């Protein structure tokens, strides 16, 4: 419960109409973001121990969640050839999301395997140049790995073992072309 205090305080502060509508001064908006960020990070231990309970493992899991996926930045997926992504479904019905994760290069191929060893089709696209130049965007991701998870059970999770493969996979590489000059 102590880990939850920061997030509860954040939600308390942000009942204010300024926080809801964005009519606060800039420095106040920046402070709201700071308070929320602390709240999220304080919740990491709670979610890790909740997931380890779900997984039935005794010790809390070593997991991070990337807070900058909205600018396609994630040190863990950019700097590791092999990593595990666990996807938790907070809904009471199954979902089939498309997972998109930033990766360092655009030429590497990756495999995505579920615990049963089944390979899920993956695709690596180059990130648009406009994303690469977002001011302040950290990291060095140039590509984006996408794959389909299949069904993720209600209030459940599914883990995938992602590994970079040296040999090009059987899937056709994305075709890139620009239509004829606009008429």
């Amino acid at each position: 419960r102590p880990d939850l205090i920061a997030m509860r305080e954040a939600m308390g502060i942000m009942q204010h109409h300024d926080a809801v509508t964005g009519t606060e001064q800039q420095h106040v908006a920046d402070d709201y973001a700071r308070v929320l960020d602390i709240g999220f990070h304080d919740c990491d231990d709670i979610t890790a121990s909740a997931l380890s309970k779900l997984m039935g493992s005794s010790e809390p899991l070593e997991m991070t969640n990337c807070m900058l996926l909205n600018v396609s930045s994630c040190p863990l997926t950019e700097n590791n050839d092999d990593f595990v992504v666990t996807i938790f479904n907070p809904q009471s019905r199954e979902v089939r999301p498309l997972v998109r994760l930033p990766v360092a290069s655009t030429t590497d191929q990756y495999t995505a395997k579920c615990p049963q060893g089944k390979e899920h089709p993956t695709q690596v696209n180059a990130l648009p140049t406009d994303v690469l130049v977002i001011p302040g965007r950290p990291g060095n991701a140039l590509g984006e790995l996408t794959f389909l998870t299949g069904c993720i059970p209600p209030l459940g999770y599914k883990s995938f073992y992602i590994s970079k493969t040296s040999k090009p996979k059987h899937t056709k590489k994305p075709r890139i072309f620009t239509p004829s000059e606009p008429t």
Partner: protein
Amino acid sequence: SLGYDGRFINLNANGLLESISIDGKNESVQMDFGFYKGAVGNNEVFGVRSNRSSGAYIFRPNGTVNLFAQTPAVTIVQGDVVSEVRYKYSDWISSILRIYRGAEPFHVEHEWLVGPIPFDDEGFGKEVVIRYHVSDLHNNGEFLTDSNGREMLKRKMNYRPTWNVELDEKISGNYYPVTTRIAIEDGDNIWSVVTDRSQGGSSLQDGTMELMVHRRLSHDDAFGVGEALNETAFGKGLVVRGIHYIVPGSHADARKVVQNKVLHPWYFLSSAKNIPFEDWR
């Protein structure tokens, strides 16, 4: 045409969105980027509308929407899992139409990237909108917007349910809060756009849904905050990235897409360095 399993986005010779097909049924859909100039007033006499500036509390455009020329640079990426059409309208506006295999309920993603918004020569700010046009759908000035992600409220152009309104501001007077979804319908032909954050929206022309995605204004609107809505980051005008989900079909499908996006799955990542797959398994 790009897509999978009977669902396609169809492009014209210039690579622009022309229609969306679902299991053989074709619906012509186009999309535009545009912006309103933010009105600049002296805010002198409180309550006198004509003095009002557009700002944090107020959306007041100076004139009608300025649509971007439909000649963006286009790049198409086609793959096994996902296909994308990437547009670059200017050096501060680009977007991606994305369709992927197995999207259920079916929807097309439109990821937009806007900013830094430049002020123009007279110092006017800009309020950037995206307009989706379902050409054969006639909603006759009626549309629906959600209320805090829950029930959908019917909206009608230039109308208020509880009094005979005379709108001075024909554009902003018809803008409503969109927390997760805006929709237009013509019988059982229903189209929704699901947002990934709260935005302002309307249906100012027949068959269209318009959402405001970013604003940068040069004048305070004298309602108390005491500064213009001119957010910056790393010394430049704020760059904003988000996604709209274009959902054809029933309200039930659109509601599911809202839940799938608002209650998006969480990703937890861990390194698997020196842990072979067999051991991990």
